[in-house]
């Protein structure tokens, strides 16, 4: 069965520090991969997505993610975190056949001054 794992429930980083949020998936073929961000009380906003091609994808707000097939991972990175990046981050996998979509349990990011 398909699944998405975000191993880190909560991460705290200092403003200006680099960030990496981990995401691993379980699926037989290469899925579509997504990262979303959710600010408190809001819906989910798409940060970036990977369908095929270049394994390093750029997104909004200075985020990027790298697809590593050998590790079944799609980790989200940002070189320098801003206080406004504090939010919940969700990794998701889209499976084309069957039109299914699977979300991870989310990683909560706290940014300290």
């Amino acid at each position: 069965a398909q699944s998405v794992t975000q191993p880190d429930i909560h991460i705290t980083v200092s403003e200006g520090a680099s960030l990496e949020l981990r995401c691993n998936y379980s699926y037989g073929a290469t899925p579509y991969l997504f990262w979303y961000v959710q600010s408190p009380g809001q819906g989910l906003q798409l940060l970036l997505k990977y369908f095929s091609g270049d394994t390093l994808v750029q997104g909004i707000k200075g985020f990027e993610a790298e697809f590593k097939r050998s590790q079944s991972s799609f980790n989200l990175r940002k070189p320098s975190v801003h206080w406004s990046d504090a939010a919940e981050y969700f990794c998701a996998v889209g499976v084309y056949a069957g039109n299914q979509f699977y979300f991870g349990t989310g990683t909560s990011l706290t940014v300290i001054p």
Partner: protein
Amino acid sequence: EADIYQTPRYLVIGTGKKITLECSQTMGHDKMYWYQQDPGMELHLIHYSYGVNSTEKGDLSSESTVSRIRTEHFPLTLESARPSHTSQYLCASSEEASGNTIYFGEGSWLTVV
């Protein structure tokens, strides 16, 4: 930016009341979804639709019902609200042309007292 709208954003109602959460999208997407999310928790798919007159139950059992009479409209109804229904409800839509990228509304916060 996706055009998907939810009303009301916030609602407090009494136990036993009937409520309908509205969701509309202007993108012409065939697929629509309802997710339920408690604060700081993961998303649970409760309903989805592949198109007009199509409705399916999601992974999480819900006492709510949905309808899809028009492509752009996917309302969710609770016939008799209970305090256990207190949660955030997120509407979303997607289409195959965008690789099944899911776009979310801002969410509806429901509190049943």
